[in-house]
């Protein structure tokens, strides 16, 4: 019916059009109608993307899945070497992403139907969701890095709009600004990286960039070496800075926990399943290039490890359920990042597969967890765990769904998270045992803080004084998400997504999984001891490990650190002198000029007084002066 190219255009175009329609019509559209427009549009996109990816994966080129360009036409021709085109491409990871984005977005929009009911600006909420979905789909399908950058900024804008959706709340406004500014700051690095990389490769097309490095033309000496690394390496580091900003890697993670000020379904869609993994996607897109640079891969690995461990430690002491989930998202994205990082080593190439496998499963179980948290918040009207406890009686279905999510993220077989995390750990072991050690600790911590949250919400107190209730409108999309959260692990992922594009076989090593699963179960057991029933164990251990506890609940003081940095670096060193110059030199100069002109005008206007005879006198004086001048010139 449709050619693949048409389908590829329609997938991002439908949400964009709906953004225009719903956004322009605004309140004139009945609430339910705008919601159904949004949901119907994303359903159409989902069907197209399923069809497109099935047809893509059924037609490998010589047994491999390669980057396939649907179309590309020139857009901006700056010079012979700097051309920017617009186009759409398909490769395994973008096909994976469109399906994930569309399905999670569909569930989230469905969930929002009940969750956001009666909300003022309900229509705008759906318009923004459509804008986000369209930009994210555009991002993953972009054929060149500059087009990707445009969509990259568009998802940033829609994230900003949705975090600040409750703009009457000052904290939401602050959070939206923080998210936007921090990611913009990182995107500056991304932009410079793009320019450097395109200077090196003379093209912006992904295909061209990959071919350039594959062909062996690359010679680090040609474009120069700076601090013993080549220009291309620096470009990749800068691009990774952009990716780290979007994916909230340490130390640029500070915006993500605050972004939880937005509506909870938004957190599920943007800040768990799709936008925050854009950084992983970007590194994955350029993976063949990244894998040539050992140092950059090491950087990615250790940033990922650091993020996953620190975020897991912070998550233990947080009391806001959405913040715990936000930190666990950070931690899981850290896993994806270092899985990409370790994949640079020979023998551990399957880390690439593992990373995207984890991205795939994480999208489902984490959005399930977020939506469940949303359902709980909807019932309890609070984010704090103290106000919950004993909720399993009021919300039995949400209880089971949350348990599924927790088991999946803790890596308990046979839930989806087990398979992907297993793969990551295996490749970390093959590449760097030290990374494996950290990852193992991280997965124990993950199990502990997730079950701490689970027990604090649903058990702990024997009876709760809140009158929570469930609603089918909220439960149904969650039930649908729970299906992939349980079974997504059985997808033969490595036969579709690999770093080379060639299908591979992976086997589960049962002996290997003893340690991770054991650590996970240990975490769950500890959480059971500490939090299943109210007791004094948490307080005792908190005072025993008071130093660590303070670090954790203070979020390692990263916010304070950044505040200090920007107070010294930006305000004191840059903004204050700049303000002084602006106030005294620029403004002062202008003001002086204006005053002098005014004075001069005061004097000059006396000449033009309307007295005819004065004019005649001036005229005569002028003539006399001219005559004198002429006489003098004739004389000399």
């Amino acid at each position, binding site marked *: 019916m449709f050619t693949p190219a048409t389908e590829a255009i329609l997938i991002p175009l439908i949400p964009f059009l709906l953004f225009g329609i719903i956004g322009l019509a605004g309140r004139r559209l009945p609430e339910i109608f705008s919601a159904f427009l949004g949901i119907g549009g994303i359903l159409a996109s989902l069907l197209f993307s399923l069809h497109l990816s099935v047809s893509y994966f059924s037609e490998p080129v010589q047994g491999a899945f390669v980057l396939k360009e649907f179309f590309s036409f020139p857009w901006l021709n700056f010079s012979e070497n700097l051309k920017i085109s617009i186009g759409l491409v398909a490769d395994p990871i973008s096909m994976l992403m469109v399906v994930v984005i569309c399905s999670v977005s569909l569930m989230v929009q469905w969930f929002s139907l009940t969750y956001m009911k009666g909300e003022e600006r309900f229509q705008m909420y759906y318009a923004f969701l459509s804008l986000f979905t369209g930009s994210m789909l555009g991002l993953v399908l972009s054929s060149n890095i500059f087009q990707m950058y445009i969509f990259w900024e568009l998802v940033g804008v829609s994230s900003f709009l949705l975090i600040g959706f409750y703009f009457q709340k000052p904290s939401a406004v602050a959070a939206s600004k923080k998210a936007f500014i921090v990611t913009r700051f990182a995107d500056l690095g991304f932009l410079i990286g793009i320019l450097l990389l395109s200077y090196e490769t003379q093209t912006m097309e992904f295909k061209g960039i990959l071919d350039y490095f594959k062909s062996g033309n690359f010679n680090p000496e040609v474009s120069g070496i700076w601090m013993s690394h080549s220009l291309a390496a620096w470009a990749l580091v800068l691009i990774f800075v952009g990716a780290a900003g979007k994916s909230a890697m340490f130390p640029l993670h500070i915006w993500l926990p605050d972004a939880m000020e937005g509506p909870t379904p938004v957190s599920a869609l943007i800040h768990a399943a799709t936008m925050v993994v854009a950084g992983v996607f970007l590194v994955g897109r350029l993976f063949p290039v990244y894998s040539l640079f050992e140092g950059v891969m090491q950087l990615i690995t250790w940033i990922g490890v650091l993020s996953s461990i620190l975020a897991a430690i912070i998550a233990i002491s947080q009391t806001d359920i959405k913040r715990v989930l936000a930190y666990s998202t950070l931690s899981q994205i850290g896993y994806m990042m270092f899985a990409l990082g370790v994949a640079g080593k020979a023998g551990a190439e399957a880390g690439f597969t593992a990373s995207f496998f984890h991205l795939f499963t994480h999208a489902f179980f984490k959005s399930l967890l977020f939506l469940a948290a949303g359902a709980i918040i909807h019932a309890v009207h609070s984010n704090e765990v103290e106000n919950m406890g004993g909720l399993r009686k009021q919300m039995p279905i949400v209880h089971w769904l949350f348990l599924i999510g927790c088991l999946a993220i803790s890596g308990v077989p046979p839930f989806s998270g087990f398979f992907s995390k297993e793969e990551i750990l295996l490749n970390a072991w093959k590449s760097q045992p030290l990374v494996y050690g950290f990852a193992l600790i991280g997965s124990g911590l993950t199990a502990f803080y997730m079950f701490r949250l689970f027990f604090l919400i649903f058990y702990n107190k024997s009876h709760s004084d809140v009158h929570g209730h469930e609603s089918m409108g909220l439960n149904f999309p969650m039930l649908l998400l729970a299906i992939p959260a349980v079974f997504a692990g059985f997808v033969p992922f490595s036969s579709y997504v690999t770093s080379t594009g060639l299908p591979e076989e992976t086997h589960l090593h049962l002996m290997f999984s003893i340690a991770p699963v054991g650590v996970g179960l240990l975490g769950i057991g500890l959480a059971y001891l500490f939090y299943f029933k109210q007791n004094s164990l948490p307080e005792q251990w908190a005072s025993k490990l008071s130093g660590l506890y303070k670090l954790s609940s203070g979020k390692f003081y990263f916010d304070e650190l950044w505040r200090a940095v920007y107070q010294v670096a930006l305000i004191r060193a840059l903004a204050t002198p700049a303000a002084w110059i602006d106030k005294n030199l620029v403004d002062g100069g202008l003001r002086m000029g204006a005053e002098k002109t005014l004075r001069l005008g005061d004097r000059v206007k006396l000449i033009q007084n*309307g007295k005819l*005879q004065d004019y*005649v*006198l001036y005229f005569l004086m002028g003539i006399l002066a001219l005559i004198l001048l002429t006489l003098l010139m004739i004389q000399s």
Partner: protein
Amino acid sequence: MNQELLTPLLILSAFLFFTGVYGFVTRRNMISMLMSAELMLNSANINFVAFNKFLYPGKLDGMFFTLFIITIAAAEAALAIAIIIHVYRQTKSIDVKDADQLI
């Protein structure tokens, strides 16, 4: 041709011209100013005629200019008097000091 008559004529015309200038600048009455302007124009006429007569006797250019100037002076006088009447209607005076606004 007797060139000696030229200098007295030029002196006469200069005298007339500066009388006109003096009158134009000092007189407040607009009619007097108009008359002073006529004096200046006529001093120029004398110059034209004198130069034509003594320097280019075979030609008539200076005479033509004089005729034109007389015509223009007449037209200008009519226009000036019309303006003066208009100013008088507005300000009830023909003093140039009272006519310092572009009404």
